[in-house]
């Protein structure tokens, strides 16, 4: 195969994106067809490229910065995933985005995003990667901005946060390049001394903010409401996670020599644990379908960062497996959200309810994805989380507890979501709701099916996709048989979550009759009765605590938000008004300034005499 084929995954979507932008809005179907064709072609191409090892390099700007691309297991894997998701989203958008304004921009942004993402994944040069990375930021900005009329505020917030963290990434790249003496990623191998760790932390900030971790997450929930829905499913839910975690994995596996005991490992795990808990608590109190999902999109990143942060092969495998799983089920969830929005016109949970019967396929897909994200066996989320738990337990019980608590709360919130949206009493205006159209259903079904496949036959992705990334040497001596004890704990936790939901539903009086048979089920009854007698009170208190901490989390969340949004703006405004006051408009004043300037320059030049 010709080496320059490696350029095509970047070139095809990019050119298609430009073409789509130029086509008139009136011939909508042509646009859709081009977008579909381009993504399909990219997908096919990346699949054929899978398994190849290609190094491609042409001289670029000088200073040792070449246009270097490298295709190997890891990047090929991410390429396939990104292309597949794009294809499905275009298919979905064909139906969802119809009748929405700015359509031409949407498709071209999506295609260019794909091109940039492919470029960032393929590049073997830090500066080149940065180039694509920044391009991604632009298209992201554009995509949020074309959502609702008020979306600009969100877009700017996202832009500032992402721009700021990209600045960190730049700094990190600068330091790393300086230390290593080369910008070629595959040649860099740095020890984690003072400067090295500094570089790592800067690059890590860039990576995890792209993945949407705390404290760089605040734009995601806002974007969830403002941006077009396929965007949410596409960027924050899947593509950015892929990229962010890809970069994190690259820097922690290849570029830096991390060991399990280093403080960076602890730092990563702490960030992971905090992200899991903070975001999931936020999710629990949400009242909007999309916002709730968006907070989960943040929370799940915590598992990946935790997994990679353990620096144990099992954890890394778990983190990466979780990354791909998360991309699957979270995009599926967002797609169900889009279907619900399209059919009912709202994503407010208070106005939804009981539409599960009206939209059975969507509901089933939702169930599968929700079970997956909650870590219910035998769906895929369960297996990846198991691996992360295993690694976390090995590194410290506290991380394990955080992870398992996160699972509990995740399950609780999804029970709530499913109950409120699809079950329960149906309001009158939802009586005429129908199942959504085929192009929207297909991606959901496909993704849900993959969720099951990756769950039941989990050795397939593990052996063929994930393990080659780490290589044989690192894996030597590790077994990946599930730990029975951990599985048991998980199951118990999940059941607990279910019970909690039932009780909460009952106490809140939302009439969940289906709880009866579970209540009298032979084994559960024991636990259940116990729960009613002994566990209930602590439970209630526990709920209060959870809500209290959620509130606290909310304040922290808003505080971080304030720092980005108001503080910086106020400082800039203050300085600006001082400068404005100084410009009085009097020409003699300006002459005086100039003369003072002249005096100053002359003194500076003459002081050596």
């Amino acid at each position: 195969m010709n080496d320059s084929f490696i350029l095509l995954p970047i070139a095809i979507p990019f050119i298609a994106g430009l073409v789509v932008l130029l086509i008139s809005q009136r011939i909508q179907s042509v646009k859709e067809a081009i977008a579909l064709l381009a993504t399909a072609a990219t997908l096919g191409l990346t699949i054929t490229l899978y398994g190849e090892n290609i190094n491609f390099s042409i001289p670029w700007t000088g200073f040792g910065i070449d246009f270097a691309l490298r295709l190997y297991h890891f990047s090929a894997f991410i390429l396939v995933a990104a292309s597949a998701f794009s294809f499905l989203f275009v298919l979905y958008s064909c139906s969802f985005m119809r009748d929405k304004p700015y359509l031409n921009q949407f498709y071209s942004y999506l295609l260019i995003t794909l091109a940039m993402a492919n470029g960032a994944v393929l590049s073997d040069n830090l500066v080149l990667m940065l180039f694509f990375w920044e391009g991604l930021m632009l298209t992201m900005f554009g995509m949020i901005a074309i959502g609702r009329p008020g979306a600009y505020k969100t877009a700017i917030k996202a832009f500032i946060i992402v721009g700021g963290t990209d600045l960190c990434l730049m700094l990190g790249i600068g330091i790393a390049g300086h230390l290593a003496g080369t910008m070629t990623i595959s040649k860099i191998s740095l020890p984690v001394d003072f400067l090295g760790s500094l570089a790592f932390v800067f690059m890590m900030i860039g990576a995890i903010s792209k993945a949407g971790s705390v404290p760089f997450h605040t734009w995601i929930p806002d974007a969830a409401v403002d941006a077009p829905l396929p965007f949410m499913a596409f960027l924050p839910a899947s593509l950015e996670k892929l990229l962010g975690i890809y970069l994190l994995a690259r820097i922690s596996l290849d570029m830096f020599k991390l060991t399990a005991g280093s403080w960076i490992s602890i730092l990563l795990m702490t960030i992971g644990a905090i992200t899991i808990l903070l975001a999931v608590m936020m999710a629990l109190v949400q009242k909007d379908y999309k916002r709730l999902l968006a907070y989960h999109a943040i929370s799940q990143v915590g598992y990946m960062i935790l997994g990679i942060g353990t620096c144990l092969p099992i954890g890394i495998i778990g983190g990466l497996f979780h990354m791909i799983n998360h991309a699957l089920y979270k995009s599926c969830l967002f797609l169900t959200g889009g279907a619900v929005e399209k059919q009912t016109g709202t994503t407010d949970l208070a106005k939804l309810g009981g539409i599960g019967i009206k939209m059975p396929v969507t509901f089933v897909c939702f169930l599968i994805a929700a079970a997956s994200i909650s870590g219910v066996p035998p769906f895929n989320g369960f297996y990846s989380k198991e691996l992360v738990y295993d690694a976390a337990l090995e590194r410290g019980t506290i991380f394990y507890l955080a992870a398992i608590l996160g699972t509990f709360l995740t399950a609780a919130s999804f029970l709530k979501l499913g109950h409120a949206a699809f079950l329960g009493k149906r309001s009158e205006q939802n009586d005429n709701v129908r199942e959504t159209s085929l192009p929207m259903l297909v991606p959901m079904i496909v993704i849900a099916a993959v969720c099951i496949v990756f769950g039941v036959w989990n050795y397939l992705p593990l052996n063929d996709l994930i393990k080659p990334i780490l290589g044989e040497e690192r894996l030597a001596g590790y077994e990946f048989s599930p730990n029975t004890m951990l599985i048991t704990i998980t199951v118990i936790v999940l059941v607990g979550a279910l019970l909690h939901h039932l009780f909460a539903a009952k106490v809140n009086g939302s009439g969940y009759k289906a709880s009866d048979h579970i209540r009298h089920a032979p084994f559960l009854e024991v636990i259940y009765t116990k729960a009613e007698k002994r566990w209930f009170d602590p439970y209630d208190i526990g709920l209060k605590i959870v809500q209290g901490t959620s509130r606290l989390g909310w304040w922290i969340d808003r505080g971080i938000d304030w720092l980005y949004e108001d503080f910086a703006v106020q400082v800039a405004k203050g300085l600006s008004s001082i400068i404005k006051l100084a410009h009085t408009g009097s020409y003699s004043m300006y002459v005086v300034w100039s003369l003072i300037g002249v005096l100053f320059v002359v003194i500076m030049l003459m002081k050596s005499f």
Partner: protein
Amino acid sequence: MTNELPQVFWLFSIGAILLLITGFYCLIMTYNLVRALIGLEILTKSVTLFIILAGYVTGRMALAQALAITLIIIEVVVIAVAVGIVLCVYKNIKSIDGRLLRNIKG
């Protein structure tokens, strides 16, 4: 004559420097637009004197005179255009007070 040269040079240099000070003082302190232009003229005179002086003491009188003549021609055009602008200002706001020309600030 020759031994007086530095003294002559320095004497007129002082004169030119004082003209410079006068011109800038006028430019800064006055509000009247025409007077600001008169300040500019004084500055120009100071510079002309400098150039002539430089030519005189280095013996490049012809060059200095050529430069001075060019300079005078250019400055007269600038002043003419400036006076035109002042007159337009007067036509618009019936005043040549510089304090009224502070609409664009900040």
